[in-house]
């Protein structure tokens, strides 16, 4: 391959595309992000809350969108579709068609005047038609780019030129361009990442759901919008027919999933069980605990991290779970709905509900299908983009990668992981072109203003009529001139317009200003822009303050101009008082050792190490044992049917022979100092190394009944049950059976009957989580037994079958082959005994309500995956936390699934949570991609607004040390005071408020600055 291109095309602006774009742009690549709607954000932007943390979806997503929108090295192409991709890996030529927006994004200030005046109300597609918007619209309040667009389908002018055109008339900046036309972009890129996301299944094809016929039958996506504060009902839960607050809500699961009849989707959509529980929980939060919530399901699939606990909690809170499927939704009086269902014993019940939510499944939408077709990317049998078991984000077309729900239904963290993994594949392919096509911004040297008295410039913005229509801007400007320290005050029509910005820089220089206040909109969107102006004018960017006189003044007091003007003056006075007390701050950064430490040489650790080494970063791979491979050596095959051994041998060979990988066997980590970019780690043999990042991939253990806590705990529902494991040779765990498959499969062919018991050691009070992998693993083994001897009876005693996603096809295949599934619950535990030298297993069939006895030739225990006991020590060394289940705890369950809260430390594999090999590999690659965002730089930026200790006041009491969520404060034992590591400090100030002695402060956000603002607020 000739020198590759240093840019990447990312298709799809949902969370996966955004994450991939950010990881690439932050590791030295230029990104073209193509999104088909008017704003990035995708499905996640439409969700109200996210499970299992109940985080506000838009709130946690928004910062990523803003970062993407502002990124110098991300070219955002909205309203765009990829037409073609020609060429080969490293050198693709891409044609993108961009539909007209009819709004000039350079000029649009998102003031909303156009939408206010637009006469055309149209169904709001962001709200799935549940509400209305105008023909000129902002896709959603936090849209990025925060620019309006005109919907040509509805715009009066566009459909009948010459008519209306109201938006163009009222736009204060002349941003409306009704003659806008389609643009064609030809882009040269080195790699392509597909993140086209999913569509929700349309249940109108299933007449019996009543969808489309009864207004109070809604889809789960509709319901998200009905819960969302930015949705059509402003977060007040109302049912569509009569706006009544529903008090009885039912969820019907598997609508369009696990249905090979009319839905044509045999797979499980993976996320619906959890989102239904979440919606039930949130609905009760919104509309009160007297809301009854009933979920009708087949198998409750809460197989992710903290999911089972969420399910248990919901159940404890009174959400009703019915293991039953409703055939038909029927109407009752006043828009209510009747569900008739048979319970597990076959008793028919009828219940009325105010509202029915259909938990619709996920599918690849038609646009994405077309795109895959155009790009020559292969699909699998379920019409998702096909990938490989050991290369989970690689498509059949070299140089084209896929992430997110486009390759299989999956939740947000899994999508984010894959996004980073896809970024890794692109990094690996293009690392030679790193930083070749990226841009950086240069600034003049800064003037030292320490000794100067404040010389403050105040710039008051009209924002067209957005502010000036309510607030007397001239009056405010005049007022500002008289404030202490103010040298000059000006008013501008649009302070953020390019010419005004240029003028501001000039004014700063000409008047020798050393501090600036802009009174305009909100710092959340505009502070970076003005701060950059300060830098361009040679002033430290922290000598800046904004007065929010639009979003928090003129817009919210539209009918009280006098009061609003008075408030504007107050806000300006507060800002002036505050900025006068600000000091220049350093642009902190930390130099980076460009090497990585990977702990654990299982599949995850080796994959991560290789992913970084292939990019040219030296890696030290530490393994406590004397061999590579970890847990994987015990595995027979993956759920996709690929044998593990050849893959593992190949992977090990690559790791051992790689020039950039130094494998250290038989050692562990014994001490860690430093922080991101500059870790100094000591190993158990006394050797030490410096490294910029660390990836923890230390794996987990298989639970063995009869050993460990399970059998000891008499409070376990199983009591002291050991299932004769260890005592009889015919009782296996899954991994032990895999060993037989590897070594001597024919020894099993003669067996007549085999029984599997699921959930051994999982989903019990002492180990409440689901081990995620065992259902699939056990079923795959059952199928293997059927391969060995089709005549063998294979019986699976299970609680819920959790073959999520496309694993469902194994479950279906197993049933088709006559493998018998008998459900048990904690009230009807299977009993294992001995009889005439053989095993006897007794279970209870809930459908026929009868006891059944089996005499298997052997028994297989699908035993739990449990965290390693020593994981806590390692976590502590890296200042990382553990979850309640003692797995390692990532920084954020949704959006930072491979990061620790400690910067520069990442996690992958089973130490995070039980997961199959493909997911472990994806996570390892993701960790490597995240690590590369650090290793690719000479230094990493650090927070400037950091805490600072006044050692004269500090008593060393340690409150701040304990409070700091980032472990940035530590005690200095010699001086008996606290010390802040500015590389770790994020500037939250929790320590400041916690300190009784006023000994710790936050730079420029100290008591001095805040109280100046408070006092100024109260001056007349």
């Amino acid at each position, binding site marked *: 391959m000739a020198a590759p291109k240093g840019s990447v095309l990312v298709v799809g602006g949902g969370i996966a595309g955004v994450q991939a774009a950010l990881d690439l742009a932050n590791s030295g690549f230029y990104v073209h992000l193509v999104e088909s709607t008017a704003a990035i954000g995708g499905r996640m932007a439409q969700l109200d809350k996210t499970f299992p943390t109940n985080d506000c979806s838009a709130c946690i997503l928004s910062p990523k969108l803003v970062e993407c929108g502002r990124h110098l090295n991300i070219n955002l192409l909205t309203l765009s579709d990829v037409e073609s991709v020609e060429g080969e890996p490293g050198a693709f030529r891409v044609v993108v068609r961009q539909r007209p927006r009819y709004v000039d994004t350079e000029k649009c200030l998102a003031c909303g005047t156009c939408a206010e005046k637009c006469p055309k109300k149209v169904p709001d597609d962001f709200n799935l038609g549940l509400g209305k918007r105008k023909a000129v619209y902002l896709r959603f309040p936090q849209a990025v780019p925060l620019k309006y667009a005109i919907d040509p389908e509805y715009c009066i002018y566009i459909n009948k030129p010459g008519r209306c055109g109201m938006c163009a008339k009222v736009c204060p900046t002349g941003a409306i361009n009704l003659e806008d036309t389609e643009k064609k972009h030809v882009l040269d890129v080195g790699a392509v990442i597909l993140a086209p996301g999913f569509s929700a299944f349309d249940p109108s094809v299933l007449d019996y759901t009543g969808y489309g016929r009864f207004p109070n039958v809604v889809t789960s996506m509709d319901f998200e919008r009905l819960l969302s*504060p930015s949705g059509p009902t402003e977060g007040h839960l109302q049912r569509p027919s009569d706006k009544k607050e529903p008090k009885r809500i039912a969820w019907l699961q598997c609508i369009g999933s696990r249905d090979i009849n009319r839905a044509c989707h045999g797979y499980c959509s993976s996320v619906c069980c959890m989102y239904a529980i979440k919606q039930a929980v949130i609905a009760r939060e919104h509309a009160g605990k007297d809301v009854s919530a009933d979920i009708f399901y087949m198998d409750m699939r809460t197989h992710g991290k903290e999911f089972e606990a969420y399910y248990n909690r919901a159940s404890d809170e009174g959400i009703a779970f019915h293991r039953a499927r409703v055939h038909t939704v029927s109407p009752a009086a006043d828009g209510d709905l009747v569900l008739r269902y048979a319970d597990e014993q076959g008793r028919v019940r009828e219940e009325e509900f105010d509202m029915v939510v259909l938990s619709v499944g996920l599918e690849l939408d038609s646009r994405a299908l077309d795109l895959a077709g155009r790009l020559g990317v292969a699909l699998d049998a379920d019409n998702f983009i096909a990938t490989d078991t050991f290369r989970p984000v690689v498509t059949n077309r070299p140089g084209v990668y896929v992430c997110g729900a486009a390759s299989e239904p999956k939740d947000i963290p899994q999508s984010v992981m894959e996004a980073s993994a896809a970024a890794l594949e692109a990094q690996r392919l293009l690392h030679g072109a790193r930083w070749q096509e990226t841009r950086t911004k240069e600034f003049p040297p800064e003037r030292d203003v320490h000794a100067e008295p404040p010389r403050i410039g105040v710039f008051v913005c009209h924002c067209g009529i957005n502010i000036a229509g309510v607030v007397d801007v001239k009056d405010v400007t005049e007022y500002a001139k008289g404030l202490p320290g103010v040298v000059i005050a000006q008013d501008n029509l649009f302070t953020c317009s390019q010419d005004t910005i240029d003028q501001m820089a000039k004014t700063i220089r000409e008047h020798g200003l050393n501090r600036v206040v802009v009174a305009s909109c909100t710092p*959340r969107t505009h502070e970076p822009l003005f701060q950059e102006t300060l830098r361009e004018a040679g002033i430290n960017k922290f000598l800046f303050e904004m007065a*929010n006189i639009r979003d928090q003044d003129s817009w919210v007091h539209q009918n009280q101009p006098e009061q609003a003007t008075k408030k504007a003056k107050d806000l300006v006075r507060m800002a002036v008082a505050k900025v006068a007390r600000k000091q220049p701050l350093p642009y902190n950064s930390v130099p980076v050792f460009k090497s990585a430490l990977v702990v654990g040489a299982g599949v995850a650790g080796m994959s991560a190490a290789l992913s970084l080494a292939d990019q040219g970063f030296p890696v030290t791979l530490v393994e406590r044992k004397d061999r590579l491979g970890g847990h994987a050596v015990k595995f027979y095959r993956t759920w996709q049917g690929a044998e593990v051994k050849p893959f593992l041998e190949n992977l090990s060979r690559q790791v051992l022979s790689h020039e950039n990988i130094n494998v250290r066997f038989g050692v562990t980590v014994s001490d860690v100092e430093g922080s991101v970019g500059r870790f100094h780690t000591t190993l158990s043999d006394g050797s030490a190394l410096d490294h910029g990042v660390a990836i923890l991939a230390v794996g987990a253990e298989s639970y063995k009944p009869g050993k460990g806590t399970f059998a000891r705990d008499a409070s376990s529902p199983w009591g002291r049950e050991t299932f004769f494991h260890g005592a009889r040779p015919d009782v296996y765990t899954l991994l032990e059976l895999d060993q037989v498959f590897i070594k001597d499969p024919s020894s099993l062919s003669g067996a007549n009957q085999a029984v599997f018991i699921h959930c051994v050691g999982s989903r019990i009070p002492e180990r409440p989580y689901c081990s995620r992998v065992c259902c699939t693993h056990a079923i795959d083994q059952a199928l293997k037994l059927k391969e060995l001897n089709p005549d063998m009876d294979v019986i699976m005693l299970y609680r819920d079958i959790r073959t999520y996603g496309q694993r469902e096809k194994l479950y279906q295949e197993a049933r088709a082959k006559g493998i018998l599934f008998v459900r048990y619950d904690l009230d009807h535990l299977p009993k294992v005994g001995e009889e005439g030298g053989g095993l006897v297993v007794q279970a209870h069939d809930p459908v026929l309500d009868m006891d059944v006895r089996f005499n298997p030739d052997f028994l297989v225990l699908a035993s739990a995956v449990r965290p390693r006991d020593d994981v806590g020590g390692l976590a502590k060394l890296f200042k990382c936390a553990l979850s309640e289940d003692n797995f390692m705890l990532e920084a954020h369950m949704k959006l930072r699934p491979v990061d620790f809260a400690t910067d520069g430390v990442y996690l992958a594999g089973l130490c995070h949570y039980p997961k199959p090999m493909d997911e472990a590999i994806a996570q390892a690659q993701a960790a490597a991609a995240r690590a590369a965002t650090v290793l690719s730089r000479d230094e990493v930026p650090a927070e400037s607004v950091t805490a600072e200790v006044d050692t004269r006041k500090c008593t060393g009491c340690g409150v701040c040390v304990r409070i700091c969520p*980032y472990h940035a404060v530590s005690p200095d034992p010699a001086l008996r005071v606290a010390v802040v590591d500015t590389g770790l400090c994020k500037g939250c100030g929790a320590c*400041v*408020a916690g300190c009784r002695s*006023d000994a710790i402060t936050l730079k420029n956000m100290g008591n001095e600055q805040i109280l100046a603002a*408070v006092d100024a*607020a109260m001056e007349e």
Partner: protein
Amino acid sequence: METKKWEPRIVAFLCNWCSYAGADLAGVSRYQYPPSLRIIRVPCSGRVSANMVLDALKSGADGVLVSGCHPGDCHYISGNMYARRRLALLKSLLEFIGIEPERFNVSWISASEGKQFAEVAREVTEKVRALGPARHLVKDF
């Protein structure tokens, strides 16, 4: 027509990531609320100390509002959890010594709760308005 009437002055400490954004969203959505709030942006509700609240009251604020991310949503992981304890105790103590409970308020407002922000602003303002100007801890300069 605007009438000249006494308008309470309320110092509002809003965390940057949720509540300040929620206040912005109230503006973007044009939810109207009384012009009584003087918003001070802080990084996190965990930055707000008892001293700051008392200082606002001392300086003449008729009321104080502290607002942060909902529990579990904190941008800084757990700042609002510390805030919740600190402010709960302060609030209780102030009430104990006879400060009207309505003068000191804590709320959780997320970045997507523009309407809720306006509602909180209105609730707090109207409650303070009903009490009249603050007297107890106000220092005359």
